[in-house]
């Protein structure tokens, strides 16, 4: 899939860069302020996961503009160690980094669609979509 744009995640500040770009897209598409905040927060969590666990990767954006629905697709990609047990990281309160453990289950609640593909040793792809209501 060709993305409209991607933000490389290599350093801490890139987390802020990714969420600012995501918010710009969300505003352009016509999301309200609450959904803009939801999207920006989800991107922040996804980008931080890349930074913490994979070291580097990217967050990509694709606007969806079809006749009966509009939305924003946010995809987080990395070539990191992958996730051994996906059901475990999707549990509320599970954390290996000493954080709040709100990351991925939080992202799933913030967005409308959430798909995760991860291969240990190869990397992780998390694809999320938010629809304009």
């Amino acid at each position, binding site marked *: 899939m060709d993305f409209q744009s991607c933000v490389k995640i290599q350093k801490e500040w890139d987390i802020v860069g990714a969420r600012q770009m995501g918010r710009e897209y969300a505003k352009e598409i016509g999301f309200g302020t609450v959904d803009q*905040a939801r999207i920006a*927060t989800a991107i*922040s*969590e996804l980008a931080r996961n890349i930074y913490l666990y994979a070291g580097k990767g990217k967050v990509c954006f694709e606007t969806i503009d079809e006749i009966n629905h509009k939305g924003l697709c946010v995809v987080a990609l990395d070539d990191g160690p992958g996730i051994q047990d996906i059901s475990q990281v999707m549990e509320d309160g599970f954390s290996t980094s000493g954080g709040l453990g*709100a990351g991925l289950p939080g992202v799933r609640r913030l967005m409308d669609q959430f798909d995760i593909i991860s291969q240990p040793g190869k990397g992780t792809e998390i694809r999320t979509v938010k629809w304009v209501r």
Partner: protein
Amino acid sequence: MRIPILKLHNYLLVSIQIDLDDKSAIEFQEDLLSKIHKSGATGVVIDLTSVDIIDSFIAKVLGDVVTMSDLMGAKVVLTGIQPAVAVTLIDLGIHLQNVPTALDLEQGLIKLRQELEE
């Protein structure tokens, strides 16, 4: 970027007006604790009116700084949390239950005065 911490009588006032990255958040935590130590302040208001996103990391830093300040003997109130930020925090599953909050700076100062007089 450092966040300014202002002293007013025995209170410290902070207004966060930048998009917080992880490093600035941690620096702010350290700066605030050392300012409490140096000034002997008994109350702190952290105003979040201009903050349009709080993710799980920033929430943890803010929650921690309230507990840390409390350990040192200073009460902290968070004020001005925007509606969109309140919604996303609950979506994330973050309730900040033991964190005192108020609608705005004025209400925050009233709350501090009440708590400190008790």
